[in-house]
Every structure is written in C-alpha cells, then in structure tokens.
C-alpha cells in the first residue's frame, strides 16, 4: 500500500515500529489459531449440511434420537479452555512488554494535545510547538503523552503502534520506535464531533541527526520578511491573533494551531487540504469550504486583504 510520493499506507500488516511489530507477531498467532478453529468448525458445518440433508431415500420417520454425551461435551469444553488459556498467556506477555517499558536513557518526550479537530504537538524539552505533524528521530524510542483540550480523541498511526485515547482530565502515555525514516499516516480514531474525519495526523521519522536540525529550525522565531509587512500588520490587527500564535510577534493565541512555521507543514486543517497558496487563500477566506464545521470562523475579509494575509503566512517557513 505504498502511496508513491513518499506517503506510506496505514496497514497494520506493514509495521515499522517496535510496538506495531510486537502486536503483529501476536496477531499472527491469534489469526492462525482462529483460522484453525474456523477450518474445523466450518468444515463440520459443511459436512452436516451435505451429509445429513434430508433425502427422499431416507424414508419416513425420524432418525435415531441422541440426547447428549458427557465425554464428547467435556472434550469440547476442555479443549477451548486450553486454547483460551494459551491465548491469555501470550496476551499477558505482550501487554506487559508494551505497557511497562523500562527506563530508556535519551528518550524523547512529546506531548500531543487533541483539539476539535487538530493535533497540538509540544516538545517540552526542546521548546518547540507545532501542529498535526509529529517529528521524531528514527531508531530511538519516543514517549508520547496524550491529553485532550476538549472531547475524547484517539491517537492512531497503525504502522507505528496501536491506538491510545486522549481523554480530558487524563494524561495517557504510549511509545513508538520507528525502525526506518519515513512518513507515517494516521488519524483520530475516536469519534469527536463534526470533523472527526478530518483530524489527520502524520508522523515524520527523521534519519540520525536530521531531527536535531529540524528542532533547531522550529525553535527559532518566525521569519521576518519586510516585503510582507503590511500583511503581517493586517494579521496582527484582526482576530487571527486571538487564536493563533506566531513566535516572536504579538500573535499569542492558543486556541488554534501555532503558525510560527506554518509553511514547514504539508497540509492545512489537519489534513483537510494540501498546504498550497490557493488552499491557504480559500481557508483564510472561509475554512468551511475546505472543512465544513471547522471551529475557525470565516474572517469576513475582502479578497485583497486575504491575499495580503496569505502572502504573510507564506513567509512563515
């Protein structure tokens, strides 16, 4: 399920991280056991249907009545009990392995906060805040703390790990360890309102060294480009700044995504559209054209004003 342009699919059968790998190993065993049971039981059913269907040659009267058999019934109680016991043991082993990872030196800690309908990504140790794209180093574990700013969400990047919910008032933890650099797709997996479908997420696993360069660039303030000074002034004089933050400027809102390095991101609206100038313009004009129900209101700006703001936004690399 390779999407071609560097995007990789979301199949649980193509794990690329330690937890997803361990889950797939366990699920191979479970699938094999279930397939075995299926073949036996479905086979018996087919045999009954074929062999014991009424035939004209059967003649009148009913077949011999069999009321039960203690031996047989005990057998098909004990055998499933044994299978269940084995499955329980392997389940418990994987549970412990994945839920109680020991202390790992040098582990990156990230906090992901779910919002209707986007992801806030904070790196407390690095002083970086971004949205909808989680950048991590490949080959080393990253611990992800999960919180919610409003309703329940669920963090699911199938190739990296199983899902974990973001629930208001709780701080859940999970971890990933991507085994190769790349872009891994995911999305919110707990229904969270109108635009649950457009709460997409991507995890970018960087090769060694590259993650630090990315973090250094993200940590810096916004680029100042005198050519778009009027766009910036307009941005800072409208309601944009009530919700959005642009580092190093008076824009310090926290309700919407941080825009300091907006242009480093591939999509806008948490995956609702590609991050292109045309889409940005449409979004600033009226987000509901790209994402009906989005929390950001139409800003009621005339076209020239939208153009100036978009020109400013496009400099936020």
């Amino acid at each position: 399920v390779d999407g071609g342009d560097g995007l990789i699919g979301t199949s649980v059968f193509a794990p690329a991280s330690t937890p997803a790998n361990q889950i797939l190993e366990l699920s191979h065993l479970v699938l094999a056991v279930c397939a075995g049971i299926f073949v036996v039981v479905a086979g018996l059913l087919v045999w009954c249907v074929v062999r014991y269907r009424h035939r004209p040659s059967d003649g009148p009267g009913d077949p011999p009545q069999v009321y039960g058999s203690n031996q047989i019934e005990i057998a098909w109680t004990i055998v499933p009990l044994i299978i269940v016991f084995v499955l329980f043991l392997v389940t418990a082993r994987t549970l412990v392995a994945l839920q109680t990872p020991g202390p790992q030196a040098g582990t990156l800690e990230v906090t992901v906060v779910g919002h209707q309908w986007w992801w806030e990504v904070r790196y407390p140790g690095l002083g970086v805040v971004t949205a909808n794209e989680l950048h991590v180093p490949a080959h080393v574990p990253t611990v992800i703390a999960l919180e919610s700013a409003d309703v329940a969400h669920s963090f699911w990047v199938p190739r990296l790990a199983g899902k974990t919910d973001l629930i208001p008032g709780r701080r859940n933890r999970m971890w990933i360890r991507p085994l190769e650099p790349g872009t891994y797709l995911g999305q919110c997996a707990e229904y969270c309102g109108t635009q649950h479908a457009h709460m997409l997420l991507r995890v970018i696993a960087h090769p060694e060294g590259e993650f630090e360069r990315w973090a250094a660039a993200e940590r810096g303030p916004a680029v100042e480009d005198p050519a778009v000074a009027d766009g910036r002034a307009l941005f800072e004089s409208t309601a944009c700044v009530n919700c959005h933050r642009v580092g190093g400027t008076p824009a310090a809102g926290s309700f919407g995504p941080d825009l300091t390095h907006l242009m480093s991101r591939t999509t806008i609206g948490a995956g609702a559209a590609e991050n292109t100038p045309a889409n940005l313009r449409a979004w600033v004009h009226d987000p509901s054209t790209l994402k009906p129900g989005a929390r950001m209101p139409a800003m009621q700006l005339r076209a020239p004003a939208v153009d100036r703001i978009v020109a400013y936004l496009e400099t936020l690399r």
Partner: protein
Amino acid sequence: VSTLEHAVPARPVAAASLPARLHGWVVTVDHKRLGIMYVTSALVFFAIAGLEASIIRAQLALPGNDFVSPQVFNRMFTMHGTTMVFLVGMPMLLGIGNYLVPLMIGARDMAFPRLNAFGFWLFLFGGLLLYFSFLGGDGLYGAGTAPDVGWFAYSPLTGRAFSRGNSTDYWILGLLVSGFGSITTAANLVTTVVTMRCPGMTYGRMPLFVWLMLVDAVLVLFALPPLTAAQVMLAFDRWLGAHFFDAQAGGSALLWQHFFWIFGHPEVYILILPGFGFASEIIPVFSRKVIFGYPMMVAATVTIGFIAFGVWAHHMFTVGLPPVANGFFAGASMLIAVPTGIKIFNWLATMWGGRIRFATPMLFSTAFLFQFLCAGLTGIMLAVAPFDWQLSDSYFVVAHFHYVLVGGLLFTIFAAIYYWFPKATGRLLDERLGRWHFWLLVVGFNLTFGPQHLTGMLGMPRRIYTYLPDRGWDGLNLVSSLGVPVQAAAIAIFAWNLIRSLRSGAPAGDDPWDAWTLEWTTTSPPPAYNFEELPEVRSRRPLWDLKHPEDPDWRHE
C-alpha cells in the same frame, strides 16, 4: 397434552369496523397481540434504520464523496446505531419472547398483562420521542436535528459545551422512556417463567428458548438500570449544573464510558441470547433430532449471563487502563468463547446424524451458524488486548458487531419469523420468496460487511464521513456499498412475502413443522386464552411424547 383431544373453536370472523378493531389493539393486554405490535413496530424502525444505513454507505462508496454533509452523516450513524439496538433489537426480542413464552410454558398470559401493555407503549412512545428530534431537536446546526453524538454518546461530547440545543436531550429522554419499558417487560418475563409454568414443567423441562429468555430478562434487569442512571446523571449535567462527566470541574469523562459499557456489553448478550433461543428451537425440529446436550446448553447460557457482567472494559482497552486491568478483561472476554463454543458444537451435534429439511427457517439458522462462527472468531481477536489497540474503533469492529447482530441475530430473527409466523397468523410464509429473501440477504450481507474486516486492518477508523483516495480503502468501500442494494432487495422481498402471505398464504394448520413444543398444540392463531385446558407435560418435548408413545422423551431425560 389434553388440549389436542378437544376441538378448539375457530376464532370468530372479525366483523367489527376499522376504528373498533384499532381500538381493540390499543387497549389490548393480550400477550400475543402485544407481541405482534412489538414485532411490527420493530420492523418499521428496522426499515428506517436500514434507510439511514443506506445513506451512510452511499456517502462512503467513493472517497471524497459529498452525497451528504458531515453533520447529516454523523446524525445518520448515531440514529442508525441507536435505532437498531434500542428500537429494533430489544423490542423485536422482547416482543417475540412476549408472544412465545406463555405459549411455550403452557400459560394463558403473562403474569402482569397490564404492565405488559404499559411496557410496550413506553417503548413505542420512547422511540417516537427520539425520532421527534428530527423535527424538534433544534441543535447545533439550526432547526430540527437528530442526535449526532454516536450511539454510545461518549462524554464530554454530550456536554452542553459541545452538544448545544436539544438533540442529546432527545437521545437521553427517548432511551430513558423506552428503557423503562424494557425493564418492566423483563420483570414480567421473569415472573411469568418463575410462577406460571404448567403442571409438570420443571425448570429442567422448559424449552431452551424459555431458558434463554429467562436469562435474557435477568440480564435486562441488571444491565439497563446503570444506563438509566447514567442518563439521569447526564441530564443533570446538562440542565442542573451537575459535573459528573465534566473533567474541567472535577468530574470524570471516563466514568461515562464505564457506566455505558457496564450496560453496553451485557446488552450485546441481551440481543444475542434470544437468537440462540430461536436457533435452539429451530435446528432440532428441522434436523428431526432432539437438542444435543440440553443440560450443557442451559449451563452455558447461565455462564454467559454471569461472565457478561465482567467483560465491559474490553470496549475500553485503548483508554489507558493499567496492564492488570487490561489482562483481566482480556481473559474474561476470551472465557466467553468457551460457553459460546459449547453452544455451537451442540447445535452441530444436533444436526449430525439428522435428516435436515432446509425450509427457510433452517436456511437462516444454518447461515447464522456460519456467520456467528466468524463473529465469534473476530471476537477472540478483539479480546486480545494488544491486537485490539489496532482493531478497536476501526472498520474491523464494525464488521465484527454486524456479523454478531446481523449475520447472527438478524438471521435468527428471520428464521424465527418464518418459523412462528404460521402460528401467529394461521398462514405459512411463501417458501419460494423465502429462499430469494435468504440468498439475496446472505450475498448482500457478506458483500457489505466481509470487506470491512480488511478496511479496518488497513487503518480505516469508523465514523468518518469521508476518506482520502490515497489510503487503499476505495475498492473495499465500494464493494461494501454495492452490497446494500442486494440487501435492500432481500428486505423488499421479505416485506412483500409478509403482506402477500397474510392475505393469501397457505393455511398452516396447528403444527406445520411437525414440532415438539407446547405452542404447536393449540390453534393457529391461538385463541385469546391460549389453551382451553392447561396442558400437563412429562418431558422437554411434550408433542414428541404424544407422537411417539412407544418411545417418549421422559424415558431418556
């Protein structure tokens, strides 16, 4: 069985006017008429829920489709799920139970006939109240909106901050009212089975369907009140400033999930146990063999009833429970497979060595066995907590519970309708139309829900109104949607079969299937008093004893 020896007077021809007849239905306390009204109302709600599902599948047929808005889509899956569970499944099963239990235990009516009528009307008006939201909901998006919070209505999405207007209140009140109806009917069923069995019918001689309904009703009595309580708490949160589920004010959003699933998981067994009951009556009759291992079947049923209350958090493996809790609920959920497996093996053993007649009820029961086997196996996969972290809330879960509730339960309901329709109306349903109904439904159902196992494993979450074309989900979704018209054709044929057979079906006689339980000893349809003389039984199959005096069952039990 003495009734057979008496001529039962034919039912007087209905000569009354239409208003008088309708009035008769409205004021009736007869368990049979109430049962028929339950089933009829459930079928109407079934058609509505099917329409909602069709809208869902039409929207998802293609990536990026804009057949409906996200708001409409979210209302559709909320109302589809809520309707199917509370207004189709529950009333259908309580209704058929209502109709059959007194007949099967040789009683003249339920223990509390007026309470019985009250329960039905509570259910019906609760359902109408829920559907009134389409006109009066006045929610977030303007006038007239149905609930859009999902059928399990997780907090805090249902709080006033996120669900403005009244749509969530309609969800709370509609289900609260119909829930009280279910509780009264369950109390009635338990009392009836405990106190009104005919002479000779010990617990060990009750038909399996009666056992299943008894355990089912007990589950309703213990499972529904937690939901009712949680809904009252939610109403308090919304209207009286309480903070049970409001995390920002010290409440717990997670608490709702616990309350809901403490109801919600037993609810799954409440829905499927009567289906087991139908299969346990129909499979022996059409295999021409006594049920294999009756005591074990009863024991398995009671075991399922107990375990049902200890597995709720397998719906919550992803909420961040500690490993010990996850392990406990995984183990308990897997344990359910043992009694369920016993049932499947006993049904197979009943068919083994039989002379199986594949009339429509048996066709549906056979497909039930196959599809329920699939559902059970995917259930085991979901019980493996780490695997569930991948599968939970994906289309795999959607596939799993539709294999349980449609492939399992709905197929047994159709089996039951084909089997007992002659008893209730005096006319047989048409076999040829029945086979069309069956085969189209088998094909359509598996076409729609089979591929969803894969869509889920390929990473598609449930409840999304659209998806991108680059995820590899397009083809599978299209196949899923193409199954819908096939299923719709099956249901249309079924509706036509019902209408046609009611008017001009072949006369059924008292015992068209050569069956063995007490309801087949009285006329079709039975008189208001069911039995002229209360029967007396000596075994589990009183009619077998009567038909085989040389080798009666009571010699073997």
